């Protein structure tokens, strides 16, 4: 039975939906608004567009969930994630591409023509290995310095993708990245790919949930709150931080592999620092240390980004810039009025 009191009822249960909304429950409002927004978008633009948006959402959401493990749950503000995303994307692209570069009359790279599901684990492993090596060094840094070195990693990654032309083709990019094949069935339909992307998102989210609710996750929370105290009680915090850093990087590589397969073409422009900053913005928008918040943040971002296309008075050339402006304004407003993000447990 709903009552008008915002607190718990006599039975100790939380009050109903409407009283909670009336009480200005931001979390509920945020969930409801995004849900209505999604439904409205699907009804307005049709199922085809919804499938596209769904796939974009799944890729950004995998990235956001994985980055939240590092930023939200462990307290390491990193903008390096785009590098691991790129490693996953390029690994899948290089290993699966079947392009005959001699026909393109540009410089070529060796082709391996591996199936997607053989290339993806290579990308994941490579990202994990890179994260391990980089993480050993990064573990020496904290706070602002950590942000700066992660910034450096993002820039170095981009420059490697751009300049290691013998394997990435540099600015020419890599064409004809293979779609996944399950049995004899090629997942070349948009709906099929969406389903696979959502399955990957579900697996990544489930793994993240398992991690944060385990005793390992509890130590991450402790490290986030007070690294020295955790160390005093017997936890080798550098090992924990390194472990979550590597796991998170491997998750980002999954998103990268999906991205390159879905777009079938990648070049370094998809892995610029700005994308990493957008990703951090999504995590902050959704809220730190909340998996559901990362999903909500990714969905809000995708709806904003794609919604820009349909603003009648906004010329197409300004759509890209407009999404950055809107996201920037939204972040400023969040920092002013809700620094913990939509569903967050912590302030940045």
């Amino acid at each position: 039975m709903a009552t008008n009191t915002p607190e718990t009822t006599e039975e100790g249960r939380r009050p109903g939906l409407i009283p909670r909304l009336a009480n200005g429950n931001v979390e509920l409002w945020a969930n409801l608004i995004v849900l209505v927004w999604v439904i409205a978008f699907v009804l307005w633009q049709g199922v085809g567009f919804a499938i596209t948006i769904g796939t974009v959402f799944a890729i950004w959401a995998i990235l956001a969930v994985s980055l939240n493990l590092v930023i939200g749950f462990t307290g390491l503000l990193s903008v390096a994630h785009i590098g691991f995303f790129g490693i996953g994307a390029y690994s899948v692209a290089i290993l699966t591409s079947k392009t005959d570069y001699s026909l393109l009359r540009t410089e070529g790279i060796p082709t391996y023509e591996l199936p997607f599901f053989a290339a993806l684990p290579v990308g994941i492993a490579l990202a994990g290995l890179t994260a391990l090596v980089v993480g050993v060094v990064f573990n020496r840094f904290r706070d602002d310095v950590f942000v700066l070195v992660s910034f450096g990693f993002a820039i170095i990654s981009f420059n490697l993708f751009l300049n290691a032309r013998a394997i990435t083709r540099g600015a020419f990019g890599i064409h004809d990245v293979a779609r996944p094949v399950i049995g004899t069935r090629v997942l070349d339909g948009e709906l099929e790919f969406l389903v696979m992307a959502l399955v990957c998102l579900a697996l990544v989210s489930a793994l993240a949930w398992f991690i944060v609710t385990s005793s390992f996750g509890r130590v991450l929370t402790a490290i986030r709150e007070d690294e020295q105290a955790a160390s005093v009680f017997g936890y080798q915090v550098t090992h924990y931080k390194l472990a979550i850093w590597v796991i998170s990087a491997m998750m980002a590589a999954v998103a990268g592999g999906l991205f390159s397969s879905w777009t079938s073409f990648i070049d370094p422009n998809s892995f610029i620092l700005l994308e990493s900053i957008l990703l951090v913005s999504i995590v902050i928008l959704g809220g730190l240390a909340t998996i559901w918040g990362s999903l909500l943040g990714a969905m809000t971002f995708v709806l904003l980004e794609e919604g820009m296309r349909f603003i009648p008075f906004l010329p197409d050339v300004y759509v890209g810039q407009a999404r950055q402006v809107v996201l920037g304004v939204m972040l400023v407003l969040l920092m002013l009025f809700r620094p913990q993000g939509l569903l967050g447990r912590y302030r940045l």
Partner: protein
Amino acid sequence: MAEEHEAQRHPEQAEATNGAAAEPYMLEMESVSVHYGAVVALEHASLGIRRGEVVAVMGPNGAGKSTVLKAIMGLAPVSEGHVYWRDAPLTTATHEIVKHGISFVPQGRRLFTHLTIEENLEMGCPYLRDKVERRRRMDTVMDLFPVLADKRKDLASQMSGGQQQMLALGRGLMANPEVLLLDEPTLGLAPNIVASVFFNVSLISEQLGTMIMVVEHNIKGVLDIVDRAYILDNGRVVFEGTPDDVRETNILTEVFLGKVQPMDEE
């Protein structure tokens, strides 16, 4: 071999021990110096704690009291001297010191406020895999501090200052330590809560037999519960004695007014 080593380090103490006088220290700092750049936090400080003892470390602000505990825990850069545990040098990394049976309750409690009381307690025994033993230890802590049992599923942030201090002590006890190092356990607490904290420190010593080294500002309160006290000034140990010794001298007045000479210069 350990006895020989001990005799070499402390001929006077070994002699006294042979004469059935003072027991050797279980945990000992021997002439430890800590420098933070040009700032001298500790200078040739020698302190120790014997089995069953509660020892206070007192002194004015900046005397180096907290640095004593930090040096033991490997949190301060020791430039000279050694810390010994059971006659062996204690050189392990901070996160491994708890394995030796030394537990630290830092200043300001430093609880993990987004974890529940139960989770905070579990954080205190990272090397314990046996769930039954962990439950037993938690029950021991809950028996000692019943207020924690009533709120075990509450977040640590939802507790009062006094309750948080109980939790901090309990978390320190979860490692089943032989020595508990307490850094300013009454800091920021109301006077009536301060009394209960001191009572609980005594209770831990009496019921569990834990050695306790407590750094404390509240001189009157802490002298009522300790066996011995060290007084520090400008990073040096300037006095060591029983609470009665402290009360009988005007050493504290001199230290707080800046009129004291170090012990080794006397």
